[in-house]
């Protein structure tokens, strides 16, 4: 009897091991692709950040921390970092507020809310490059529809993309227009997943809509809100397409954010060593922000 059990256990272990090995082996193709497309470029960039790799001068010499020393004295880069943070805070903040309002309205299930949902997500369907070109024309001082509408109300139009004080905010508005639908969809899904029972019970007890929202809906939606904010923050931090097409960091350098500044240095001026150092530093900042969010999510889960 004992021998039989031992034999059965051996068979089980062997089966478990085989399953585990098979599972691990099936990971290999994905890991190879991940390594080739994600890790390898980052590691390569890390290594060339220690080199004076400049195609304009045809050099590729090891210089140690030279690029990082240069980075810490580059005020333009840190101004771009500051603008990047402004970009993220405003974009994500407004995305969330507008997305939540839109989700709330659609969730009430008024007549026509399905049609409304389809219309609301249209900006997200448009390719970023196409949207950026569209908005660039809309902002045109002479022919743009924005100034035309403002003039109808007796408000003087202005050169939105030609002024250092408005260029960045013009791009932020475009980004908000394009990605609020994404926030709307995620939050709508979150709202729909909130169980009905506590809401019904609260209604019976005489709770108002605001109280329902504040004490039941929002707390139950916290995990999904945190995830949506995390993903949106990471994505917005890397924003590039709208800004590059609409202003290319201009006028001058007044609307550069990290991605456009790094692109300018690396690809326009062909200074890959310095560009890589900036990219690695930006990755470091993004890691800290992401870890902050992960910490909050984990704390939320622990509760």
């Amino acid at each position, binding site marked *: 009897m004992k021998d039989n059990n031992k034999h059965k256990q051996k068979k089980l272990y062997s089966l478990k091991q085989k399953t585990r090995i098979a599972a691990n082996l099936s990971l*290999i193709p994905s*890991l190879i692709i991940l*390594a080739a497309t994600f*890790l390898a470029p980052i590691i390569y960039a890390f290594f060339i950040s220690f080199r004076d790799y400049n195609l304009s*001068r045809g050099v590729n010499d090891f210089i140690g921390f030279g690029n990082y020393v240069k980075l810490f004295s580059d005020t333009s880069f840190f101004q771009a970092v500051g603008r990047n943070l402004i970009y993220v805070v405003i974009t994500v903040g407004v995305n969330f507020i507008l997305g939540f309002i839109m989700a709330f309205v659609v969730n009430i299930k008024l007549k026509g809310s399905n049609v409304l949902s389809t219309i609301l997500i249209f900006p997200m369907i448009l390719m970023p490059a196409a949207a950026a070109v569209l908005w660039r024309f809309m902002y045109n001082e002479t022919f743009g529809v924005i100034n035309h509408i403002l003039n109808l109300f007796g408000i003087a139009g*202005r*050169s939105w993309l030609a*002024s250092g004080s408005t260029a960045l905010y013009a791009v932020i508005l475009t980004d908000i227009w394009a990605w609020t639908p994404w926030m709307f969809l995620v939050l709508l899904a979150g709202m729909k997943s909130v169980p009905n029972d506590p809401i019904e019970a609260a209604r019976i007890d005489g709770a108002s809509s605001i109280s329902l929202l504040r004490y039941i809906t929002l707390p139950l939606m916290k995990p999904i809100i945190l995830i949506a904010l995390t993903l949106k923050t990471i994505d917005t931090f890397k924003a590039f397409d709208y800004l590059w097409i609409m202003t290319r960091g201009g006028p*001058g350098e007044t609307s550069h954010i990290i991605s456009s500044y790094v692109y300018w240095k690396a690809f326009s001026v062909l200074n890959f060593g310095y560009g890589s150092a900036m990219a690695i530093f930006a990755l470091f900042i993004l890691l800290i922000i992401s870890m902050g969010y992960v910490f909050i999510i984990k704390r939320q889960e622990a509760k």
Partner: protein
Amino acid sequence: MKKVTLWLLVLAITIGMIATLSFTGCKGESTAETTAAAETTVAAETTAAAAETTAAAGEKPFAGTTINVVNLEGWAVTKPLWDHIGEFEEATGIKVVVNEIPFAEIKTKQVLEGESQTGAYDVWQTYDTAMPLMYKYVLPLDDLIARDYNGLDTWISERYSTISECSFENKWFFNPIMGGIQIGFYRKALFEDPANMEAFKAKYGYDIPTPNENGVIVFETTDQILDLAKFFTKDDMYGLTIPGKGNHGACIWYLQMFDAGFNYVDQEVQPLWPANKDKVLEIAKWDQDLIQTYKVCPEGAVSWEMPEMIEQYFAGKSAMVVSWLHDFWKDSQSEEIKANIGETGTFLFPSRGTSQGGYIGYWGWGISKDSKNSEAAWEFVKWANSDEVQTYMLQEGGGSFQPAKISLAEWGAENGLIPPATVEGGKTCVLPYPFYDVMDQIWKLTEPLHEELLSGAITPQQFYDSHVEQIDAILKESGHLK
């Protein structure tokens, strides 16, 4: 983490890295060796191809070959070339794949391809200030030119001397497509209106300048342009619109810098701005005042490149415009545009007392050192630059250009296919010498700084100071600064 999974992860990462590095092509040989090898290959192929062509007359020696050709995205000048590409493919059996690249990327993409040695582009297309950086990635063409153009000396003698821009280290690396200079367009209806002429004279004390015998207004001073710009700025029309954004905006600076007789560096690649500080400040102030003080140029121009600027002009919102306007010459002559704004005349920017024009910049074709079809690529280059095709480009193109070949340029001018100012300006324009390795890097400094100057974010003094500081830094870093 389980040991097995950890080892699998390490193995996967290693395989992934090796795969990536292999595909991105680590350089295993020096540039000199690569150059020698490529040249030997071309020479051998040339001999073989010549023998084959002789032996197989009437056959298509390159049938079945596909070549990738770079073209500036949306370039009106080369559009007829692509309209006729079927004729080339039919005659040679060579399939041409056109890779349209925007101006902002055209240098970077080709340089990166050259560095990676992928040979993704067989035929390169590039512009003057990028040539010093790009020539080391393309084949020298001397032997091919000598073979197929009745000798190198003949080929040179048939073209303007300014094509020397396409040669480095005493070799020809690019076959020039065209030369271009910046000119101005003006609305003849406004300039020639008797009421305007009278009112202008009454206000400014001199007549509105008129075209010379070649049909070109050559302004004598910048005050003349400014007076006209102020005079015509009214209601919803601006007197003078310039592009302010990126390279097109910086080109307005380059034009005036060369018109004023100086450059960023001298022939020894030493800084020239400190010796020309007064001129720099004068030009910078003039440019800034157009928008900030006199408001004869729309504020929005700071964010405009040529297409947006010319739209302003064609819509009748601007009396004058300045840029690489040969690209829009045909459009300006169309019935539709004439119905809207009348006839367009051309003018040249004043020389600021030097009798020297702006600078002439060439676009040229090159053949990648890594091309696996260099002979087929050369067949394309010869065809694209042939008299026949350049005639199509002049006659059928949306734009116009100054051909590198003298006889073609004269024919184009005689037939009104080239803007008069382009022909006139070609006589006084200069090459943007010297050509040096960090030329593009220094010229690019002006792009963001000129935008900030035009938008009023910096003063002319700050414009000067930033340039001088950064030029010194680049020259020091590159070992030029003595």
